[in-house]
């Protein structure tokens, strides 16, 4: 049996074992969704649309955020930072196993549990809101959304992995990682749709990989991106993913080399 599959199963067990942590995590996320929802409802007021979003679309954006937060923004960055600074990383480096494969398995286990919880919460909220949400009819849209989300999740994983590798060189890598995650969530559209921002700022952000993580998939889901444009953007996202993967691997290799030179 593949070690990655075994690691996935163990991590799944462990996530379920930590019930109170899981419940707290979910409650925190739920509070964010409820506040975003109330905020946007107040802004829309009696208007038919606000910034090009109908009430149903805005509610869908907020609910989709809950699912995407659980699927995209999980990662293993903080664990990596901890394992490098405590030296626990050594126990992986001397075993014949790939650390990123292993970390990805653990991340996937986290995602499994959190996405399941998020979908349950979203269904609950949607029901409470009177079923007023937007669901695309075209299966092609669902497919494009799924492709975008899988890539977003890997994109986040490798970008976060790369930033966390700073811990190989400094004991103060927690700060940069925290700032990076905060900025990334803002630039990804995880606080509000990027349409809210001044055009120049939005255009600038669109040159970075960040909007591909939340803003782009949700807009695909809301059918706000024409299919041809969506395909082009999926291609761009794939390029960003390839770049992030290559960069993360390079930084990791240098980090391990420096760890081996400086001592664990």
């Amino acid at each position, binding site marked *: 049996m593949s070690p990655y*599959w*075994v690691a996935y199963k*163990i991590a799944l*067990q462990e996530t379920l074992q930590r019930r109170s942590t899981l419940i707290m995590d979910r409650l925190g996320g739920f509070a964010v969704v409820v506040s975003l929802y109330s905020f946007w409802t107040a802004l829309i007021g009696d208007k038919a649309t606000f910034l090009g979003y109908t009430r149903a679309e805005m509610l869908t954006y907020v609910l989709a955020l809950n699912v995407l937060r659980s699927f995209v923004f999980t990662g293993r960055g903080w664990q990596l930072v901890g394992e490098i600074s405590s030296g626990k990383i*050594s*126990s992986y*480096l*001397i075993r*014949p196993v790939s650390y990123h494969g292993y970390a990805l398995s653990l991340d996937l286990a986290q995602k499994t549990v959190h996405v399941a919880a998020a979908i349950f919460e979203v269904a609950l909220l949607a029901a409470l809101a009177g079923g007023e949400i937007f669901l695309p009819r075209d299966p092609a849209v669902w497919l494009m959304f799924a492709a975008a989300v899988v890539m977003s999740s890997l994109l986040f994983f490798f970008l976060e992995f790369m930033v966390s590798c700073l811990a190989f060189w400094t004991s103060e890598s927690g700060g940069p990682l925290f700032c990076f995650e905060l900025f990334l969530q803002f630039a990804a559209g995880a606080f509000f749709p990027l349409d809210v921002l001044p055009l120049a700022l939005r255009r600038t952000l669109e040159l970075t990989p960040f909007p591909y993580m939340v803003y782009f998939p949700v807009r695909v889901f809301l059918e706000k991106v024409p299919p041809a444009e969506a395909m082009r953007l999926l291609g761009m996202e794939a390029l960003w993913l390839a770049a992030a993967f290559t960069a993360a691997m390079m930084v990791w290799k240098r980090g391990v080399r420096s760890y*081996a030179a400086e001592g664990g």
Partner: protein
Amino acid sequence: MAVAIETRGLTKDYRSPLKEPGLWGGVKSLFDRKYKDTRAVDGVSFTIQEGELVGFLGANGAGKTTTLKMLSGLLTPTAGEALALGHVPWEREASFQRSISLVMGQRSQLWWEIPAYETFKLNQAIYGLSEADFRTHLDELVDLLELGEHLSVPVKKLSLGQRMRCELAASLLHRPKLLLLDEPTIGLDVVMQKAVREFIKAYNARSGSTIMLTSHNMTDVVELCKRVIVIEKGRLLYDGPLDRLVERYADHKIMRARFTTPVDPADLKAFGNVVKYEDSTVTLEVPRAKMAAAAAALLASYPVADLNVEEVDIDDIVRRLFTNS
């Protein structure tokens, strides 16, 4: 017999940033960082045959752990060469990693929230063990380490001793041909230390694996190792049989006696070298050969409430070795 480990002039420098004290120093070091090189291991050469159980001694910071880390492939040396089981360790080939294990007493590879058995299953997959091999190896380890019911308890609920034994089992499931043990008995109570020691001995005898072990605990070394390698400040000081080391550098034992009434410490010189006298308790250094006679004479001539005899602290022997060289 084949060679398991061979090192030649193994050297390791650590580079650490120098920081001037205070906030201003911190700001300055952001822009103009100066480094200091510290030599942790300095030109160490030795050869270990397959199946040997060698004790690796030295004071704190002598370079023991650094050497073990180089031999396991975690660290690349600054200079020198090493071959372990025919591989250059720091190239980290999978075939090399499948045949070694490094156990550090203060580090854990076990998953905290769930039973150790799950970590064992993970290691089975990592090392590619068949179900049959996994069962046989596990049964043997459970038997030797008396793990039994501990396997199904979440690791966080185990005592330190139980966890250390599970740690050993996790590191040995794949039957490494080379086992590097760094302070395997650290933090354990006396009973547990003994159990771990007996296990290491039995494992070495049963599997014929090569074992290199560091310890601050003289009993570990005395009971397990015929041969010891001593390093101090990164340099190799002694490499040879343990009995010769103890004879040569610890020609005496320590005798401690507590008296029921105060005595004049000057009178105690007849029994050995008085190291300390305090609260009616004397600490004496007594030559090995004269120990029995000295103890008997002391008991006969003084009101002794309590008496015990100990080996010299390993750090003492090592210090002596260092000053003698």
